[in-house]
């Protein structure tokens, strides 16, 4: 039997979230694959509730790390709480959700433990008796099969949605309180506050139809026909990150992991490649129509209808067809 599989489960206000359950589902699946057991770890201030949620899952154990200095996330606090625990338990793999919080401290935890680091895994499979992981490369245009080499544990962060949360197996697990020595530890960051990133407040979540533009638009001065299309459809205009970063549209219209999460009846993706950070914000849409000049763009993997072509030709033609329809 190889070392255990651990799931470090992210919580919010003492409750598990979908990302946390996904991590447990993945740990259970990996433990089955490798013929070992899975353990969940949850840390924070006031996380007894999350601990009891985990106690109802098929796990060999639940470790709850409570400390007043773990209330607000800091890399110093999380490192000091997790490193000794993982070092002592010597698991084979430690799984995390690939959230902004995890990404911030995971590399440093790996260093501290002299562990391997495998960011953004999409899944695993056994090939010739050896475990292979899949992760996206080149903006999701390709998937790489990766194996881990060398000694010691490997810390793996799992892309959102890679392991469905509803696959968690119920059971009953013993809960253990673990003390963390955090007094006097350098938290490495003094958190001052949290505020909204956008100045305005466009609520895209209520829109039935959204026209999303990506870098393929090629410049702010070329937005005219797309705005016209938005008017004709009674839609809201949305954008991918580079469009906002370039200042072509305001931040409040950004869709994706750092922007809004939308689920309209129709999402028209124009010149958007379909990177995961954009997809997580719109893949719940009813119908997705993608226009992209590159047939291998990842957006087509989630699109209902795909048009391989130049948006500067397709959009004016669509505007004309809509106007004709309206006219009679």
């Amino acid at each position, binding site marked *: 039997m190889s070392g255990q599989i651990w799931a470090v489960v992210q919580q919010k206000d003492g409750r598990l979230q979908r990302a946390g359950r996904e991590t447990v589902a993945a740990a259970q699946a990996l433990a089955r694959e490798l013929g070992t057991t899975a353990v969940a770890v949850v840390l924070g201030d006031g996380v007894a509730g999350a601990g009891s949620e985990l106690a109802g899952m098929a796990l060999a154990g639940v470790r709850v790390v409570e400390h007043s200095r773990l209330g607000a996330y800091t890399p110093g606090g999380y490192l000091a709480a997790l490193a000794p625990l993982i070092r002592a338990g010597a698991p084979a793999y430690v799984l995390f959700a690939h959230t*902004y919080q995890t990404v911030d401290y995971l*590399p440093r935890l790996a260093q501290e433990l002299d562990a391997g680091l495998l960011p953004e895994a999409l899944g695993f499979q056994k090939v010739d008796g050896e475990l292979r992981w899949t992760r996206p490369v080149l903006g999701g245009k390709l998937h790489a*099969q990766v194996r881990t080499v060398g000694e010691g544990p490997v810390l793996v962060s799992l892309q959102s949605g890679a392991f469905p949360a509803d696959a968690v197996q119920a059971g009953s697990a013993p809960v253990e309180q673990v003390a963390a020595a955090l007094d006097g530890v350098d938290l490495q960051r003094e958190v001052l506050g949290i505020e909204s990133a956008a100045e305005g407040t466009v609520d895209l979540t209520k829109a039935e139809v959204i026209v999303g533009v990506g*870098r393929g638009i090629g410049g702010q001065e070329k937005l005219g026909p797309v705005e016209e299309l938005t008017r004709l459809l009674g839609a809201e205009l949305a954008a991918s990150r580079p469009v906002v970063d370039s200042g072509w549209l305001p931040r409040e219209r950004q869709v994706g992991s750092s922007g809004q999460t939308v689920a309209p009846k129709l999402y028209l993706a124009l010149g958007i490649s379909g990177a995961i950070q954009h997809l997580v914000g719109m893949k719940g849409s009813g119908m997705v129509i993608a226009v992209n000049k590159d047939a291998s763009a990842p957006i087509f993997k989630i699109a209902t*209808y795909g048009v391989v072509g130049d948006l500067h030709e397709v959009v004016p033609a669509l505007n004309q*067809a809509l106007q004709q329809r309206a006219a009679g």
Partner: protein
Amino acid sequence: MKIAVCVKQVPDAEARLRIRGDGAWIEEEGVTFVLNETDTYAVEEALQIAERTGGEVIAFCLGPERAREAVRKVLALGAARAVFLSEPALLGGDALATGRALAAAIRAEGVDLVLTGSASTDLGFAATGSVIAGELGWPHAWLVVGVELAEDRKSVRVTREMESGMNESSRIALPAVLQVQGGINQPRYASLKGIMAAKRKEIRDVAAGDLGIDPSRLGRAGSRLETVSVALPVSGREVEWIEGDAAAVAAALVTKLEQEAKVLR
């Protein structure tokens, strides 16, 4: 302030990708390589801080010989000089091995602040900057969209992006490593004068042996990850293609909008 900025050269977002003969990576022949997107923001931020504090920017790049072009670009934008690590023994590393090498080169220069991009668009580890911080024993922050240097230059107030459109602000002691996210500033373009001046700027080549690190901890040899193969992703559902000239496509789309999506009134 003396500021290090780490830059990587990556395939252009628009590049047509073909898988290499051995299946383990893309065919680089015919691909255009550019400065990693968020690194352009890191460079701009570094230049602005250096301009405000009367300091200088040093570019650090680890990559094959072709990446010298990216280094020149950063010099043309205004960096004072550059350190380039191109020895094959240093290449092919994961974030831990690459960060280790870059940190050793940075340590030798003695800087006050390190800026990196938030993620590379090819390997996308989103980790190299944090690794550099860990090696140097400095604090770090990932996904930085705002930097405000304290009067005494002993700390920075950093704004970090969070999920779902929120930002967190925090104070971090200097020296530190900040991993810059897109949109933090508007990167400048290189001027002709800058491009000419870059030709005279120093690019110092640093070899693996200069780093004082066990070679088994560097590059491919020091990496805990090994890419076996790359492939096109398999999708759950098949997209239905709509073909024809623009007018035909438009007509077909209107039908879909009307009859299936039912979004036309």
